[in-house]
């Protein structure tokens, strides 16, 4: 699944470690989600959306569409 995490992070000048701290997950988790290797669960996706003040579909793109 494609996502805009890297762009959103860069806009806020956050490193992967910074985002990981805010989400209370490991940096590897953020990297895996960012590179599309791991799809987050709905609760984590909502947490990301709240953190960036966006809707989930504004962060993640359904590659099936």
């Amino acid at each position, binding site marked *: 699944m494609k996502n805009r995490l890297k762009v959103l992070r860069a806009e806020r000048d956050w*490193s992967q*470690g910074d985002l*990981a701290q805010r989400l*209370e*997950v*490991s940096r*590897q*988790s953020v*990297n895996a989600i960012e590179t599309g290797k*791991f799809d987050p669960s709905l609760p984590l996706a909502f947490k990301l959306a709240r953190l960036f003040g966006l809707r989930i579909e504004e962060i993640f793109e359904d590659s099936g569409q």
Partner: protein
Amino acid sequence: MSDRIKNPARDRMEDSTLFILMPLLVVNLGLVFWGFGYRHMHPSGIWAYIFAMAFALLGVAFIVIFGLYLKEEQDEFERAVWVQSLLWGIGATLTVVTLWGSFAEYALVKGLKMLFVFPLFMLITVVARLALKLRYR
């Protein structure tokens, strides 16, 4: 910010490893050396049970500690990688044991001792974990 995220589940597992698994491992290694020295004495009765329990306890403790860790782990990615590693461990161990069993039954190969199945599973799981970590790096 530090790369190390606060993770109570992992901290508890590390504490359990340090204070339960490591002492058990030391006891096991001691028993192995002692057992080699006294191999010809053939411990019997209560000593045979103590020997057997001491060896089995390490594996059982590992299963309990690791099960609790997986239950408590809040980082879903970490949990997913561990679950994938365990599935690789289970699949590969069953494959090896099944093949070995067939060879032992029909091709006169010496049978695999059941005592070695769990260490084999752990070894494969750890290798799978390292490979998956490299993939997700």
